[in-house]
């Protein structure tokens, strides 16, 4: 039986000696293949006597099993090390920069004005306001007359308002000086009048571009406002206060932000109030929140009876409030942007620094500000 043990040790040695999967396969063929050494032993069984065949057959099968197990074990070992070698050879320098396709969220940015408009829309949307808009190029009736600004009012002068050539019928045309003409356009709409007649309520915000002849470090000829308007039969100044307190606290994300309502004057509201938020100054830096100082932030009031009348509603039945604030201004305050003019300069450094990620969509549930 030397033959058996010789073949066995030769086969097992060859398995151990195989250093890669190819060599191992060659060993398998040399031992277990058609012409393999163990297969050769199997072939001799046919010529043996039954007694001898049983005994020798069992031994050959045992040998075959041992060789197969050795092959399998060696294959496992060699596969693992082959994978490790491959992985090692595939290593890359992952500190290299990503491919600069120029099209990726990492380089893009959204302007603070649009972002703040979205924030404002999210907060007032929660309070039942819908978004309204109107044209930038307005006739003087919607921009002034409807809003109780008489023909001789200083605001109508050429040094304050951009004028365009009058319409063929002589109607003076202006670039709207505030978003308030949309108040008139909305109140005058049939849908709204019917809704109000049915006892409904009108709540709109009007974010948009506005224009005034004013150009220095703190003024730009174009800026952005958001108008708010509530009309029904019972809304009073307490609601105005509540609405603006709720808004300012949500917008600035300061739960105890104090607000101060001061009497003021606007032609389109009566009574009128200017609204200040609490703040403090330290080393020339403004901090919004309870403090020893106040910062004016918006104008507001109860819609003037003349405006309600001009918009086709009976001021004996309907009342409500309106307010207007500068989007650019509240953006500057919230995000610490120092200079209004820089909003419109399109400097990439500024846009990237003060801009927002495209994936930051403001909502009350998901968060308003960065």
């Amino acid at each position, binding site marked *: 039986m030397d033959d058996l043990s010789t073949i066995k040790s030769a086969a097992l040695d060859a398995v151990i000696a195989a250093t890669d999967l190819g060599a191992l396969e060659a060993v398998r063929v040399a031992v277990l293949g058609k012409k393999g050494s163990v297969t050769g032993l199997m072939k001799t069984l046919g010529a043996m006597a039954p007694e001898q065949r049983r005994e020798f057959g069992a031994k050959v099968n045992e040998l075959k099993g041992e060789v197969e197990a050795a092959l399998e074990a060696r294959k496992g070992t060699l596969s693992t090390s082959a994978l490790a070698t491959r992985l090692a050879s595939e290593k890359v320098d992952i500190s290299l920069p990503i*491919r600069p*396709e*120029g*099209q*990726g969220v990492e380089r*893009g*940015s959204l*302007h603070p*004005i*649009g972002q703040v408009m979205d924030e404002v*829309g999210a907060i007032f*949307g929660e309070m*039942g*306001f*819908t*978004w309204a*808009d*109107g044209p*930038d*190029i307005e006739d003087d009736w919607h921009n002034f007359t409807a809003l109780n600004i008489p023909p001789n009012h200083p605001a109508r002068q*050429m*040094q304050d308002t*951009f*004028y*365009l*050539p009058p*319409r063929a019928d002589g109607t003076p045309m202006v*670039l709207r000086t505030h978003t308030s003409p949309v108040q008139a356009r909305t109140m005058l709409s049939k849908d709204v009048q019917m809704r109000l007649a049915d006892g409904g309520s009108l709540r709109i915000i009007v974010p948009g*571009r506005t224009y005034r002849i004013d150009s220095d470090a703190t003024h730009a*000829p*174009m800026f952005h406002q958001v108008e708010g308007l*509530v009309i029904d039969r019972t809304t*009073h*100044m*307490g*609601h105005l*206060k*509540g*609405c603006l*307190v*709720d808004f300012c606290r949500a917008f600035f994300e300061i739960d105890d932000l104090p607000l101060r*309502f*001061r*009497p*003021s*004057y606007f032609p389109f509201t*009566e*009574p*009128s109030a*200017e609204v200040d938020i609490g703040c403090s100054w330290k080393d020339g830096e403004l901090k919004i929140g309870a403090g020893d100082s106040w910062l004016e932030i918006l104008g507001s009031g*109860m819609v003037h*009876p003349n405006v309600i009348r001009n918009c086709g509603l009976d001021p004996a039945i309907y009342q409500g409030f309106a307010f207007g604030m500068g989007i650019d201004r509240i953006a500057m305050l919230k995000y610490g942007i120092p200079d209004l003019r820089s909003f*419109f300069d*399109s400097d*990439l*450094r500024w846009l990237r620094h003060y*801009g927002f990620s*495209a*994936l930051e*969509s403001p909502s009350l549930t998901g968060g308003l500000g960065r």
Partner: protein
Amino acid sequence: MKFTLSWLKEHLDTEATLAEVRDHLTMLGLEVEGITNPAEALKGFVVGYVIEAIQHPNADRLRVCKVDTGTGTIQVVCGAPNARTGMKGIFAPSGSYIPGTGITLKASKIRGEESNGMLCSSRELRLGDDHSGIIDLPESATTGSPAAEALGLDDAVIEIKATPNRGDCLGVHGIARDLAAAGLGTLKPPKVDKIKGGYASPIKWTHGYEATPDSPCPLVVGRHFRGIKNGPSPDWLQRRLKAVGLRPISTLVDITNLVTFDLNRPLHVFDAGKLSGDLVMRQALDGEQILALDGKTYALDPSISVIADSKGVHGIGGIMGGEDTGVQEDTTEVFLEAAYFQPIGIAASGRKLGILSDARYRNERGIDPESCWWGAEAATRLILELCGGEASEIVSSGVMTAWQRSFELRADRVKTLTGIDVPAADTAAILGKLGFAVTGNGPWTAAVPSWRPDIVGEADLVEEVTRVFGFDKIPTTSLPQLSPTSKPVRDWLQRRVPQARRALGARGLNEAVTWSFMPLKQAERFGGGGADLRLLNSIASELDTMRPSILPNLIDAATRNESRGLSDPALFEVGPQYKDATPTGQRTVAAGLRHNMAVPRNWAGPARTVDAFDAKADAMAVLAGIGAPVENMSAQPGAPDWYHPGRSGAIKLGDRVMAHFGELHPEIAAAADLKGPVAAFEVFLDAPPPPKAKASKARPKLVLSAFQPVERDFAFLVDTSVEAEKIVRAARNADKALIVSARAFDLYAGKGVPEGRKSIAIAVTLQPVERTLTDAEIEAASAKIVAAVAKATGAVLRG
């Protein structure tokens, strides 16, 4: 409007502190803009007595002074020519900050003599321009007392911003009335007692028209004075005027200024000796002109009220007097004018003439018409007190304007409009203190006082009661919740703005916001510049035309960035552009551009510049982002002429243009100094149809095939002019039941392809529905595709 605390206290009997006054003013709607106390800057400065002033041993122009500062004797070297023994001046000790020079004093030796402080000139204290010598105080000044006190500067100056409706608070008395109503003291009556005249005025008033309550000047009052002595006004008056920023001129002029600021009653005095005959209040004649008190000559016209005598015009009514008849130091006879003008007329005249004066400022906001009478009396008392002489009887012309009116205030109106419960007694008391004559117990009838032209209805009465009762008492009431509505905050079109912005931001572009206007030339190049869109009063020629496209502004922005060394800008803006001046002429557009490198030099692959397909990708991303049916859209040639004619197109849905895109016309890029290509796009956010109004939000049922799709490639040879999309479309439509998609994936021209032809390879996906396709079925479909493409484009299958 500026005034001092002591001035206020002449009208208001109060123990209130400055802080209380400040807070009450602001909460009454008279916003305090600033409070300055000149005493603050002079803290530490005292009255110094010069014990002796002797010649400096080493300098001709200097004197060595021994100064008694009240707490000791200090040596000071002084260069002022008027420094002398026995005088009293303002002494600043070492360590003081000198406001006029910005220097903090240090003890030093000047040419060998010790100097510990300084005797100050007016300019050094910022009290005036005088620097010819040090301040020479009267002997009565107390040595060692605070300088501010000795100079009469120990009085806080309060500046308020009176809103345009509160003309009555452009006089200290009116401010005091508001404070008194708010409970801060008791209002003292103004000194306006009637003073009997001693003789008939030699000058009478007439009108150039028949005066009615609505005339440009319904009423004018006058009075003649004789035997008076003009000259510098007394110290207290000069100090008061200086404190509020007025320059003392002469007693008579100073009196008119005082009455203007004290009682909101603008006045004018003529040198009676220079007038010829009676005065007439009339409208100017065409061609008339006047040399006014500001030294300028103004051309007048019939819209402007003037005061004239038989020789000519001597004053612009309610705005400014004439130089020729102004009072002089030696004037002894004057004629006083107090008139009421319609505010609208004053505003128009003032604007037309470009004159800003204290008189115009008040008259155009509306003064108390009754002040023609009592204002003349107030001025009379001051003239007789300060200038001596004798006053004539009062003369006048015209009629009182109709200022009397009353409004009802419903009992619950304050509550229903403001939410505050103001006790009925308080309501009546507040209105009463403000000068309204109130009757009733709620409802009330309130007769408006003559000085409140701004009160024109019940809402104004509510505001008066509320602001005096206190805006801080308005309750904070959150808006009642509306029932949840199916209506979104933004409608479908409004929603497309943030969707477009976020789609582009996510593609690596930076959002800009640029002006809605641009230079006419640029507007014209981009299809605009219509006369109806040109500003009549632009602030600069760069900003004179409403933009027909956003692109020129973005091109400018790209140039600006490149010039700052910020390369390869990729910018976009979502905003308006204007076709005409009607509301429908304004469209919301998402426009953007990418300049130069789309892929810069990098380790992973070749660099590449931008091209039309970058712009197409951006445009398609916007359209997909706003939910437009991009699968039904096709890109076709036909972009406007600011694009490269061969490298641009329009994205269309049927015949409707959704977007333009392409390489910018090289001429435009060159004109903007942009080297390298610019890929630009403009997507019209209102162009894709609105989502269908459906009763249900449910999507159609998703049907998934159980069988594997089959992809087959075809290469066609076609004329170079044939668009790939035509081939793809023909293939796609060859068997609509089986073919689910087709796309071009290869383009080749050159060796092996005949001149004038190109090879386009497309991949077509077949999706079996009922069972796996047999080879024969696939062959049949392929044949249909080849035939359809051949028919549509003349293409032949490439061998």
